């Protein structure tokens, strides 16, 4: 990233309510960001809205899809009169209108034709609704460029976000308890590197700086396809493991499927059961869930506005935190189970 840019008084007034949350310095860093968003899907629309409102310096959206009737569910910046036209071209003006300060660029070519060099102009990449092969390829490029990468997708009432920040340092503020926070490893993937005490309005606080290590999407796939103990690091009790949402193994299983193969209840279920076995998740998680599995498959590739708003909000929030080096980042997989309202985080 280049040096943080100064903010005008007008920008400070516009961003007032968020600067009061994350500070001027973070807002300056956000203004310096150049972000690539792949696909203006429903969740892509939510992410674009949140980042443009947040005041990112530049947002590039690449999407080669033409508008079909199925898009009129969560993609609220496309116009009904534009059926058959490119989604991103239809939505461009309305997105720009949200915040004229943001440098907005749109591309209508196929992301799979883009060479690795093309990605080097961005300092953060977000892919939405892509299949495994494309995610693997793009994540490989972001790893080479050493930039943060997010992948997200919706499946009806559920959705996921995968993050590969490679290595990320962030500082968060917390109320100081009787015992000071200690530096050192918290988990194998996360450590506290420094703690700074201070008082504010006669209350003791701490600024805690953490460093997190991430897995690539390739490693992530490998990790749940082999016997692994790593979920147990954060899910420390049997009760916690038992209460894991069935949406986790189902989402992982569907993510790992080849697009060419059609999902069936049996194929999805047997894969999900295998994943549970690999990750030491009790098989009871998937017991008597055939109806759920059936609707999971029926909802495949379907977008639902509230789920899109939640997933897009969580992802954009994390991007903003990462740009400003604020707060504890998510590491590395989050799913929303829209039926139960739960949104667990897993480190795989």
């Amino acid at each position, binding site marked *: 990233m280049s040096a943080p840019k100064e903010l005008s*008084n007008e920008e*400070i*007034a*516009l*961003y*007032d*309510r*968020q600067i*009061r*949350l994350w500070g*001027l310095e973070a807002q300056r860093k956000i203004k310096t960001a150049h972000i690539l968003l792949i696909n203006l899907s429903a969740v892509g629309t*939510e992410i674009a*809205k*949140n980042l443009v*409102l*947040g005041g990112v310096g530049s947002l590039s959206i690449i999407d080669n899809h033409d508008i079909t*009737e*199925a898009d*009129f*569910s*969560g993609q*609220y*910046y496309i*116009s*009904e009169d534009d059926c058959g036209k490119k989604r991103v071209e239809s939505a461009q003006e*309305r997105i720009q*209108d*949200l915040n004229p300060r943001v440098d907005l660029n749109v591309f209508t070519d196929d992301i799979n034709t883009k060479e690795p060099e093309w990605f080097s102009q961005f300092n953060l990449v977000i892919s939405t609704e892509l299949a495994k092969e494309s995610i693997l390829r793009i994540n490989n490029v972001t790893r080479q460029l050493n930039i943060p990468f997010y992948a997200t997708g919706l499946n*009806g009432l559920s959705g996921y976000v995968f993050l590969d920040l490679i290595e990320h340092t962030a500082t968060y503020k917390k109320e100081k308890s009787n015992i000071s926070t200690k530096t050192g490893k918290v*988990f194998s993937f996360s450590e506290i590197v420094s703690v700074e005490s201070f008082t504010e*309005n006669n209350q003791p606080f701490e600024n805690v700086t953490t460093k997190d290590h991430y897995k690539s999407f390739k490693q992530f796939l490998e990790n749940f396809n082999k016997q692994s103990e790593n979920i147990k690091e954060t*899910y420390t*009790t049997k009760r916690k493991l038992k*209460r894991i949402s069935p949406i986790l193994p189902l989402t992982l299983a569907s993510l790992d499927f080849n697009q060419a193969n059609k999902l069936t209840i049996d194929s999805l279920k047997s894969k999900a059961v295998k994943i549970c076995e690999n990750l030491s998740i009790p098989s009871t998680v998937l017991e008597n869930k055939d109806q759920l599995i059936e609707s999971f498959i029926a909802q495949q590739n*379907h*977008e*639902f*506005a*509230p*789920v*899109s*708003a*939640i997933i*897009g*909000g*969580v992802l*954009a*929030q994390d991007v903003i935190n990462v740009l400003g080096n604020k*707060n*504890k980042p*998510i590491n590395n997989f*989050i799913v929303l189970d829209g039926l*139960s*309202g*739960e*949104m*667990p*985080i*897993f*480190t795989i």
Partner: protein
Amino acid sequence: MGKDSQLQAVLGKDVLTKVRAAKVLLVGAGGIGCELLKDLVLMGYGEIHVVDLDTIDLSNLNRQFLFRHKDIKKPKASTAVAAVETFNFHNSKLVSYMANIMDTKQFPLSWFDQFNFIFNALDNIAARSYVNKMCLFLKKPSIESGTTGFNGQVTPIFPYQTECYECTVKETPKTYPVCTIRSTPSQPVHCVTWAKNYLFGQLFGEDEETSPTDFGTDNQDEIKNMVSEQNELKELKNLATKDDFFESVIDKIFIKDINKLLALEELWKTRKRPIPLAWDSSVKDKIEAITDSDVARGQDVWPIEKYIFLLMRSIKELQQRLADGETDLEFDKDDEVTLDFVVAATNIRSHMFHIPLKSKFDIKQIAGNIIPAIATTNSIISGFSALASLQMFTPNPREGAKMVYTFQDATRFVSTSSVVESNRKCKSCSIPRGVLKINLSHPEIVLGDVVDALVKGFKYGHDEIALILGKDRLIYDVDFDDNKDKKLADIGFQAGEVLLVNDENDEKATVELYIEAMDSGKIEVPNMELPDAPEKEATEEQEDEKEDDDVLQAISDDAPIIIDEEEEAEEASKKHKLDEIDEHETTTSKKQKTSEGQDHVLIE
């Protein structure tokens, strides 16, 4: 494939049909309201009514994404509705009102009854409590939501079954004794309160006086000083038309008053003595050299001379307003001139009392009680509110309804728990409610008729009842029957008022009645069986136990569980802490009596 093919795949035909037929009310078109309206329209809700009394402001635009710069000053409700029309793919019927939801003329109880359920996306306790009460009268489910900064929560409410908005205690704004504010400040917030609630009001606002019994001090010299200070301020106010008003203010407020305080030795035994403002030619020369561009960067803390310059400039502009015929000026954080005055006066006072100065940006937050608000949290919480609404279309909505609140750790982003049973001690949902229909245009009905109708209708077996009209006006009891022969209009009966009926013999429960006008007949008491009055207060110990039960219930997700993790307890307490969340700021300042009888100035 039709436009609703996605909705059908996700919701199923049955639920989608119900959503398409549903008529809902969305109260609030702000941070959560904009997001929620978008979600509800995209979900294909049949009919959505949106109520908001506010207009659009620049600082809304970072999150209230349905509004543009060109919309500033326009009503929120209609602008939001017009914006979502561009993606009203499923042709939801949309109705907007720029109005106060508490306006009983525009929105009588019967109006609320047309909706299947209600989404609350409000920013203040008063309106939330009011809508909560309407829902209790109608036994109508609602979904309550709120955010502040990164945090937020969603709570479905099923009246008289699950916790209502008032079942949990709300945090009250912090208050400060008058003597701390006026004589012995020690924190920036004390000086802000002084500048905004005291000095500004005394010099430019309505005449307001604090009685010496409310000063919060026993020190007779201090009290005497405060009284004379008050009187002198009145004299000072009369000088506001004079050219040298600014110099008079400096001389009186920042020099003489401080010298008088210094003379009260008692005050400075344990405190550092303030230093009156240095007001000599060297300071005046420095101020002379300052220009408007020197006081433009509000995020920085400046040297004291710049604040004196700012005070001078803002006083001159406020004088001009008075000269132009304005009276009783009010502080408004978005009115740059009044803000400048408060910023300048705050920091000059802080400077004298050895308190760290604050930037204009920070003082605006304290004085305006600004709560941070961001797009993403509103997006997430609205999404959960919209998801929670699907529960309303199941055969037993209360079963499986979940509260959701943000709680991030290594294993989750939000915490969910089943809705909790209503609190038996809740001042709102522990009493039964009904509608009392009265022919208010009937010329002969007197209060005695109402008393008789109630005694008969509710089968009290005696006529010893007390009636309280509105918030707290006693209009009738056994020892006070002066109103018995008065016409209802003369006592203040009107449609939309609430009448509390209390059994003085403590046999039947207290009941609250919503007064509704009818065109014929006389009085119609609701046909309801009043339960027995609750047992007298249980002992302290029993109360404690009951509360523990509530906490357990609040966190048990499905099967009864044992609390074996610290975080769960933390969560439970957080739930209660988070309960009072305001989406954004209110600017009104109030004076409130506390139980100790002290008059506390408070920033709300």
